[in-house]
C-alpha cells in the first residue's frame, strides 16, 4: 500500500507550483510516484526514489591531500566550518536560493557573528532587476491577478516553456480566470527574444530583436506609446511591427510583462529593466499594466526577503563591519569578491558556484578554504574542502519559500530524511553554538 501527499510545493523554480501529489510508501521513507509536476519538478522528487538508483551522500566528506574524499562526522565538519569562520578575515557566504527562509534566518545569525559577506544567486541572475527597481520602483501584481485579469502578455527575454514549464498553464497564457473566461483565446501574447524559442511558438506575435538591442526596442515602445515617431527599424524590428504591438497593448484591459535573463544579462542589464519598468509606468496612463521578474531558483526571492527584513538589502550584503551592514554591488558582489581575490574563505550553501560563476571566480574559490552545504553532489562540492550534505528542503524538510511574485509558500515534508542526516537549520544552529564557543562569548 502507499499513501498520497497532496498540495506539495515543488522546490524547483520560482513558479512554486503547489498542486503536486506525491505517492510515498507507507513508512514515509520512499517516493513512488509524482503527479502534476513538470518534467524538471518530477525529476527533483523521483531522483530521491530508491528505484531511481540515485546514490546520496549521507555524511560530510573532507578532501584529502591526494584529492580524494574521506567521510567525516558532522561534528568534525561543524568544527572545521566554525574554525574556518573564526579564522578567516573575510568569508564569502554565497547561495541560499534552495533552502528555507527559516534556515536563512539561522545562517544570517552565524554570518553576523562571524562577520561574513552574504550574497545570493540574484548576484548572477536578477541582481540587475533589483538594481533597476531600486532606481525606478516596480508596478507589479501577484500571478493570480494575471490569471484573473490579464489579456495582454509579453514575454521578454525569457523562455518559460523550458525554464518555468508550468508558468504558461497556471498563470500566464492558458488559464481561465474570473474576468478571463475565454482563457488563451481572450489573451494576446507577444514574445520578444533574439531567438525563436518554444515560448515564441505559443505567442500571437513574435518580435525578433537583434541581440542586445533590448534597450533600444523598449525605448521605441515607449516613444510610440507616447505618440511620437520612430525610425523605420529599431533593433532589427520594423516600425510597423512595433506600432502594431503597442496598439495591441494599449487596447488591452490589463497587461503584464514577464522578463528573464534575456533582458537582465544582455548589454545594458539594469538599464534594460529600468526602461521596461518605465514603459510599464507609462502604460498605466492608458490601461492597467504590471511587470514581473521570472525568478529562477525556487527560493531566491525568499533569500532577498529575509536579508531585507534583517538588514535592509536584498543581496550583496557585507556584514564584515560587525556593527552595521553594507551594500555595494560591484564591490560586495560574490563574483567581484572572488575575482579580486578579496575573500579568504568561502561557504557555498544551497547553490552552485562551480556551475554558475566565471572560471576566474571559481578558481579562486577552489584555492581558499571552502565548505559546500548541499544535499547533492554538484560542481561546487567537488572543489570544496568540505562537503556537508543536508536533508532536502521541500522534500525531506518543510519550510517557507517565496514565489517569483513574492507570495510566501509553505513547502512540505514528503518523506523522512535519511537516517542521521541534519537539516540546514540544525546544522547552522550547531555551527552557531560552536562559533560562539570559539569566539569566547557562548
Amino acid at each position: 500500500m502507499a499513501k498520497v501527499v497532496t498540495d506539495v510545493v515543488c522546490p524547483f523554480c520560482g513558479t512554486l507550483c503547489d498542486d503536486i501529489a506525491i505517492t510515498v510508501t507507507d513508512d514515509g521513507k520512499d517516493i513512488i510516484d509524482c503527479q502534476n509536476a513538470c518534467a524538471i519538478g518530477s525529476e527533483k522528487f523521483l531522483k530521491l526514489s530508491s528505484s531511481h538508483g540515485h546514490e546520496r551522500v549521507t555524511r560530510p566528506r573532507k578532501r584529502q591531500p591526494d584529492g580524494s574524499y574521506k567521510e567525516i562526522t558532522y561534528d568534525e565538519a561543524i568544527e572545521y566550518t566554525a574554525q574556518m569562520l573564526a579564522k578567516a578575515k573575510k568569508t564569502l557566504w554565497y547561495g541560499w536560493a534552495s533552502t528555507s527562509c527559516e534556515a536563512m534566518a539561522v545562517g544570517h545569525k552565524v554570518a553576523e557573528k562571524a562577520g561574513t559577506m552574504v550574497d545570493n544567486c540574484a548576484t548572477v541572475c536578477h541582481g540587475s532587476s533589483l538594481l533597476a527597481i531600486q532606481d525606478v520602483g516596480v508596478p507589479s501584481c501577484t500571478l493570480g491577478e494575471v490569471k484573473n485579469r490579464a489579456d495582454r502578455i509579453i514575454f521578454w527575454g525569457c523562455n518559460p516553456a523550458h525554464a518555468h514549464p508550468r508558468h504558461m498553464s497556471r498563470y500566464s497564457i492558458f488559464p481561465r480566470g474570473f474576468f478571463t473566461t475565454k482563457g488563451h483565446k481572450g489573451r494576446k501574447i507577444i514574445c520578444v527574444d533574439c531567438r525563436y524559442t518554444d515560448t515564441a511558438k505559443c505567442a500571437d506575435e513574435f518580435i525578433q530583436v537583434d541581440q542586445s538591442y533590448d534597450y533600444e526596442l523598449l525605448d521605441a515602445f515607449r516613444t510610440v506609446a507616447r505618440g511620437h515617431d520612430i525610425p523605420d527599424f529599431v533593433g532589427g524590428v520594423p516600425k510597423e511591427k512595433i506600432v502594431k504591438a503597442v496598439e495591441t497593448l494599449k487596447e488591452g484591459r490589463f497587461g503584464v510583462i514577464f522578463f528573464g535573463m534575456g533582458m537582465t544579462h544582455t548589454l545594458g542589464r539594469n538599464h534594460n529593466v529600468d526602461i521596461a519598468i518605465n514603459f510599464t509606468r507609462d502604460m498605466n496612463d492608458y490601461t492597467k499594466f504590471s511587470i514581473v521578474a521570472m525568478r529562477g531558483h525556487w527560493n531566491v526571492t525568499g533569500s532577498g526577503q529575509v536579508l531585507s527584513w534583517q538588514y535592509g538589502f536584498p543581496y550583496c550584503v557585507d556584514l564584515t563591519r560587525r556593527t552595521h551592514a553594507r551594500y555595494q554591488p560591484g564591490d560586495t558582489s560574490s563574483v567581484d569578491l572572488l575575482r579580486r581575490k578579496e575573500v579568504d574563505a568561502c561557504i557555498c550553501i544551497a547553490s552552485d558556484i562551480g556551475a554558475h560563476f566565471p572560471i576566474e571566480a571559481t578558481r579562486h574559490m577552489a584555492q581558499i578554504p571552502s565548505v559546500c552545504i548541499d544535499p547533492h553532489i554538484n560542481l561546487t562540492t567537488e572543489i570544496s574542502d568540505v562537503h556537508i550534505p543536508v536533508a532536502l528542503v521541500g522534500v525531506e524538510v518543510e519550510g517557507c519559500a517565496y514565489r517569483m511574485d513574492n507570495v510566501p509558500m509553505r513547502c512540505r515534508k514528503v518523506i523522512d530524511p535519511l537516517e542521521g542526516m541534519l537539516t540546514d537549520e540544525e546544522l547552522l544552529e550547531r555551527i552557531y553554538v560552536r562559533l560562539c564557543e570559539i569566539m569566547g562569548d557562548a
Partner: protein
Amino acid sequence: MSEFLIKNGHVFDVVSGVKGDKKDIAIKDGKIVDKVSSKAKTIDATGKTVMAGALDIHAHVAGPKVNLGRWFRPEDKWFRGEMRGGIRKQASRMEQGFSIPSVFRTGYSYARMGYTFVMEAAMPPLYARHVHEEIHDTPIIDEAALPVFGNNWFVMEYLKEKDIEKTAAYTSWLMKMTKGYGIKVVNPGGTEAWGWGLNCLGINDEVPYFDITPADITKGLIETNEFLGLPHSVHIHPNSLGDPGNSPVTLDTMKLASGYKAKNKFGREQVLHMTHLQFHSYGGSGWGDFCSASRDIMDYVNKHPEITFDTGNVTLDETTTMTADGPFEHHLCALNHLKWCNVDVELETGSGVVPFIYSPNVFPCAVQWAVGLELALLAKDPMRTMITTDHPNAGPFTRYPRVFKWLMYKKTRDEQMAAFKNSGKVADATILNELDREITLYELSQMTRAAPAKALGLGSMCGGLAVGMNAEVAIYNIDPAKMPTNPDDIETIFSNAAYLFKDGEIVVQDGQIVSEPAKKTFWVDAKTPESKQVTRDVREKFLRYYTVTQANYEVPDSYAPHPYVIETTANV
C-alpha cells in the same frame, strides 16, 4: 520569575486613576501585584515618571510592502544620521534603516521608547505568512496584524446580498487562516477598482463589476464586526486619502457608524476606528487653496462616542509611504515623480510604495504637519484619541517623542510654524496658532497607553498599572514637578526610557536593550456558526481563481511560537 518594586515614582495611569501622585508599583510573575516579598529587587523611581508600556494602534512594521520599502530604498540606510555616529549595534543584532527600519531596529527602537505592543496595520491575507515571519523575527515587542477586508471579493459578494452571517463566517475563517486580529478596511472598493486602473473617491462610487459601494462595504463590515463581537472595531482608512477637500468624504464615512452599538466583552466602546485621520481632514479644492478642515472633523468626532481615531502626524522627514490604497500611491508618484512600487493581490487587495519628502519648504506638507497636531489638540476625549505617525507614511515611529514635544509645548509649535518657508500662508490655511492647549503627561499616558489598549479590546490587561494587569511598565527621567525647560529634552527622554519592563522582566535600562525575551503574537479566534455555503464558496474560489491551493493558505502555528489567542463568540 523575579519580583520588582518600583518605588516613589510619579505614576500616570488612567486605569488605576493615578494622576502623577507618588505610588509604588509591585511586579511578580509578569503581573502587577499588590505587594511583593522582601526578596524583590527595588527600583528607585524618585523624580521619575512611571507609565504602563505604550501601545501603537497603527504602524506598518511587517509584511510584503514594508519589506519592499526596505529593499528598494538602500538610500534609507545610507544617508541617515545612524550611519554617522548613531546606534548601529547595541543589542544582539545589527540595526539598520531609518524610515523603514529592519525588524531588529523596529523591536529595539519601540522598546527603547517604552512601547510593548504594536499593531501591524495592514496584512494582505495571501501574504499573511510573510507578515508573521517578520513578526517572528522582530524582537521584544508583542505584535498583532489586521488582515484587510475592504476589497475582498468574498466580502463584496456577500455584502451585495446584504448577508452578514456569511460575511461573518468568511471573516472568522480568514482571521483563523491568517492569524489576524481584526477587520481592516483600506479605501473600500477603491483598491479593487484599481485592478482596472480606476478608483472610488466617494462613499457612493460604484465598485466596477461588483455592483456595491464603499458605504455598503463599510456598513456591512461594521455589522459583521459587532456580530462577531471582536475585541477591536472596524479599523478604516477611508476613501480619498490625501486629496485636498476630502473632509466631506471623511464625514460621510464617520456618519456610516452612527446608530451602531459596540457588542463585545472586552470593554471596547467604539464601532469605527478612523485611522491616520490627518490624511483625511483637508479643505480646499486643490493644492493652491489647500487648508485644514480639522475643526469640522473634530466637531463631529467629539460628539460621537462610537468613533475613535489616531492622528497620523506628519514629522517633516524624508520617509517611505506604503499603503494597501494602490490607486493613491499611483497618484502620489504622479505628484512627486519618485520611484513607484505597486502590488495588486489576487481576490483580496493591492498596495503601493512611494518615497516621500515632507519638506518644511513645501506648503501642503507644512499644512499636513499642522493638521495632525490640530486633531490631537482639538480632541475633547483623550481616551478616543491616539497618537501615531501612520509609520512610515507620515513619518517614522521613532519620531513619536518629537510629536509628544510639539503637543506638550506650544512654543515648539510656534517655532516650527515660524520656520516654514511659507509660514504666513501656512498659518492662514490652518488653525494651529489659535490652539494654546498643551497636552499633559496624564493625557499623554491616555493617548499612548489606555486609549489604544481600550480601542483594541486589550484594556483589561494592557495600557494600565492596576493590580492584575500585565507587568509592562515604562519609567522615564521626567520629574513632573520640574518639567524640562528645554522641550528638546522631552524628545530625548521619551526616546530612551530609563526602564522598560515587559512581562515582568527588565528589557530596557538607561535607554539600552538589556534582554530580549520571547515576544507574543496576538490573534483572534472568532467563533461563529459554520456556513456550508461559505465553505463551498471558499473551496470554489481556491479551485478556480487563486494560484495557491486552499491547503497551502493557512499560516501554520510554527509561525507564531508564542501565541496569545483571544476567543470570541458571535452575537447570534
